[in-house]
C-alpha cells in the first residue's frame, strides 16, 4: 500500500512527534472537539469541556496508537487488531468521523512542521491515516 519512499516520509515525520505524543494528541483532540463538536458525543467520559489534563491523557493514548501503526506499517491489521475490536464492538465510532480526525491531524502537523509539511508529506500522511481508519472500522460488520 505505501511505497518505500512513502514509508520513509511517515517515519521522518513520526520521529519529530515521538516523545511528544501527549501535547500533540491534546492539540489534536482540542481541534477535533472545537471544529467538530459532534465528535464529543464519543467522549462523554471527558465531560462537555475536557480540561488540559484529560486532553493530554487521552491525546497520548491516541498518538501512542498511531506510533504502533507507524512501527507496523507492513502489518497494520495484526498490530491494530485489539483496537479494531474495541472500535467495532465497544466504541462504535461512526466511520464518517475518521476523516474529521485525519483532517485535524494534518492541521496539527502543518502548524508544527510548517514548511516541512510539504505537499508530498500531506499526501503521504493522508494515505497513511486513511489506511489506519480503514483498519479500525473494518470489523464493524
Amino acid at each position, binding site marked *: 500500500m505505501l511505497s518505500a519512499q512513502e514509508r520513509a516520509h511517515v517515519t521522518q515525520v513520526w520521529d519529530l512527534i515521538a516523545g511528544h505524543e501527549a501535547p500533540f494528541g491534546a492539540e489534536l483532540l482540542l481541534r477535533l472537539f472545537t471544529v467538530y463538536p459532534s465528535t464529543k458525543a464519543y467522549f462523554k467520559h471527558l465531560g462537555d469541556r475536557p480540561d488540559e489534563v484529560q486532553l493530554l491523557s487521552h491525546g497520548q493514548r491516541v498518538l501512542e496508537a498511531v506510533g504502533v501503526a507507524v512501527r507496523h506499517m507492513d502489518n497494520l491489521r495484526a498490530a491494530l487488531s485489539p483496537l479494531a475490536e474495541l472500535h467495532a464492538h465497544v466504541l462504535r465510532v461512526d466511520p464518517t468521523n475518521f476523516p474529521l480526525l485525519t483532517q485535524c491531524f*494534518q492541521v496539527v502537523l502543518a502548524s508544527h512542521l510548517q514548511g516541512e509539511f510539504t505537499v508530498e508529506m500531506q499526501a503521504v500522511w493522508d494515505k497513511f491515516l486513511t489506511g489506519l481508519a480503514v483498519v479500525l472500522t473494518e470489523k464493524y460488520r
Partner: protein
Amino acid sequence: MSLTRAERTIVVSMWGKISTQADIVGTEALERLFSSYPQTKTYFPHFDLHAGSAQLRAHGSKVVAAVGDAVKSIDNVAGALSKLSELHAYVLRVDPVNFKLLSHCLLVTVASHFPADFTADAHAAWDKFLSIVSRVLTEKYR
C-alpha cells in the same frame, strides 16, 4: 449556519495576514489538493498542473481572490459570490464533495504559514466560513 461575531472577527483579522501571501497560499492549496486527491485534477484537463506552472499560480490567485471577496462581504457571501455560484452551477459543475477537500487544503496551507494564529478557535471559524462559501457555490445546482 452563520458566523458569530467572534468568528467573523477572527476570519477578517486573519485575512489581513493571509492576503499578504495570497498568491502563495492559493497556489499551494491547489498543489496540496491535486497531490492528496488526484481525482480533483479531472476538472482541469486543460491545465498544466505541474508544481510551479503559470496556470496553477494564476488559478491559485483567482481562488484566493474569491475567498477574499467573500471575506470583504462576510455578511453577504451569497451576494458577493453570486456570479461564481452560477458559474459552478451551470458550467463547471464541480461535485460538491470536492469543496470539502479544497477547504481542507486551504486550512492546512494557512496552518503551515500562520501557525501562531491558527489556534483551535481560528481553525473552527475558518472551517465554518469555508463551509459557508462552499454552500453558496453549490446552492444553485438544483
